[in-house]
């Protein structure tokens, strides 16, 4: 392994980490703006032009707040919780292919930190680890509301992971590979997986909403029942980490959805664009298209949050176990039958 490879990966990791933090930061601003516009309001507009410095002001506020650790909490776990939530949110970005390989000064650099051949399983593992941050935080707070919220989060994530996994199996039947890089390359041009797996996409998206604890599945932080949920006892930047982790999760799951179903960095007419722009700029344009898709999904997340009321807990479980899982299994069977039919004839 030569040193330039290490430097190249290091730079890529730093850029992706920075971008995901930046996007999470501005997602908080975008969320407030979108909420305001959907409700005929203005949203934050005091800090800087159009309020674009609002995330900075919020960040400074978070850091300046007094840090309170409850007397009877498990101190160590109380500190680990937010860190774990943040860590699991961030490491999901490692396997996402951000663009086709870029040529800079004769060197071909893949715009993906690592192309492991079980990329989907890795994402899946990271997403299921994400609930540990919530669980540990809720448990360590020594607060009944936090604990209830942690239990809710755990059972909700486990229930929806099953449906999510089953919807991915149908996708794997179509693609025949688990590497996110290969899945993206198969969707060249406009040959996106969503045309083959529309039901699978809807299932995956619903489960992604549940996994990221976003409305209408935000029962773990349901204010009316649980005060603040698992972060009731948290203050200062520890609370900030939890809120931040939610937005990074949203970014990562948007990226995963765009990669798996909406062609990642592929777009119609990309071959002629590649000839026109050359080997350096064409991949960057593809990356821009990918980010456009991600932003569209993030907007969709927010749009749904400010439209649909929260599910009741029994409705949540009913939807997960009695509707999504049978639907996902039916989807697998139909997909399998169709593929078997095509291969036979």
């Amino acid at each position, binding site marked *: 392994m030569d040193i330039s490879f290490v430097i190249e990966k290091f730079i890529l990791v730093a850029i992706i980490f920075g971008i995901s933090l930046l996007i999470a930061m501005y997602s908080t601003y975008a969320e407030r703006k979108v909420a305001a516009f959907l409700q*005929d*309001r203005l949203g934050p507009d005091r800090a800087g032009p159009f309020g674009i410095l609002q995330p900075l002001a919020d960040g400074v506020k978070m850091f300046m707040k007094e840090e309170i650790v409850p007397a009877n909490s498990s101190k160590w776990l109380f500190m680990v919780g937010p860190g774990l939530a943040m860590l699991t949110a961030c490491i999901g970005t490692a396997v996402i292919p951000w663009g086709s390989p870029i040529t800079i000064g004769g060197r071909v650099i893949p715009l993906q930190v690592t192309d492991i051949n079980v990329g989907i399983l890795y994402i899946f593992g990271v997403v299921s680890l994400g609930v540990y941050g919530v669980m540990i935080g809720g448990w360590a707070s020594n607060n009944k509301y936090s604990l209830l919220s942690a239990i809710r989060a755990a059972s909700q994530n486990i229930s929806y992971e099953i449906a999510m996994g089953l919807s991915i199996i149908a996708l794997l039947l179509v693609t025949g590979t688990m590497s996110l890089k290969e899945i993206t390359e198969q969707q060249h041009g406009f040959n996106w997986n969503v045309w083959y797996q529309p039901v699978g996409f809807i299932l995956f998206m619903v489960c992604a909403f549940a996994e990221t604890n976003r409305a209408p599945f935000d029962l773990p932080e349901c204010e009316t029942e649980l005060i603040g949920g698992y972060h009731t006892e948290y203050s200062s930047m520890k609370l900030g980490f939890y809120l931040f982790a939610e937005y990074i999760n949203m970014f990562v799951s948007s990226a995963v959805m765009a990669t798996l179903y909406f062609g990642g960095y592929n777009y119609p007419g990309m071959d002629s664009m590649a000839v026109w722009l050359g080997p350096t700029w064409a991949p960057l344009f593809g990356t821009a298209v990918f980010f456009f898709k991600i932003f569209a999904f993030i907007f969709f997340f927010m*749009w749904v949050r400010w*439209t*649909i009321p929260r599910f009741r807990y029994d409705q949540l479980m009913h939807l997960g176990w009695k509707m999504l899982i049978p639907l996902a299994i039916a989807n697998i069977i139909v997909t399998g039958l169709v593929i078997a039919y095509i291969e036979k004839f």
Partner: protein
Amino acid sequence: MEPLTSKKKVLEQKPLTFAERMYLPAIMKGMSITISHFFKKEATIRYPEVEREFSTNFRGMHSLKRDEDGRERCTACGLCALSCPAEAITMIAAERKPEEKELYREEKYAAVYEINMLRCIFCGLCEEACPKEAIYLDGPIVPADYLRKDFIYGKDKLVEAPLEKK
């Protein structure tokens, strides 16, 4: 039970139809409603920069008026303080000196005239009580402040700006 009004209507809760149990059509409908609001003009007015227009009978901050020669009209009769239901007005009268003829219209004037804006209820009774047409509630909204003492407005804030000398 005998219905008390003729408006009673028995609502029957029907089980959800299949389309309703799918949730998605209803969600689509809701989303289309919210996105239509996304493009509507917002109702908010950016207050300190833009102000909503007041109606003609709006009662805001008081102003002590001057007459056509730029002399203060108030003669410190105390009727405004007497009429004030919130007891917000305090004044100390003084006698006009001969060289002050340009400043005050009558021989007696208010040396101190204070309104406590935290007590004032902006009812406008002082305006009605004034025989000299010296006080009107025609100003803007009284601004917020940090200290109680800063809400006691003296003549420096209440009296109209002097007329421009031609």
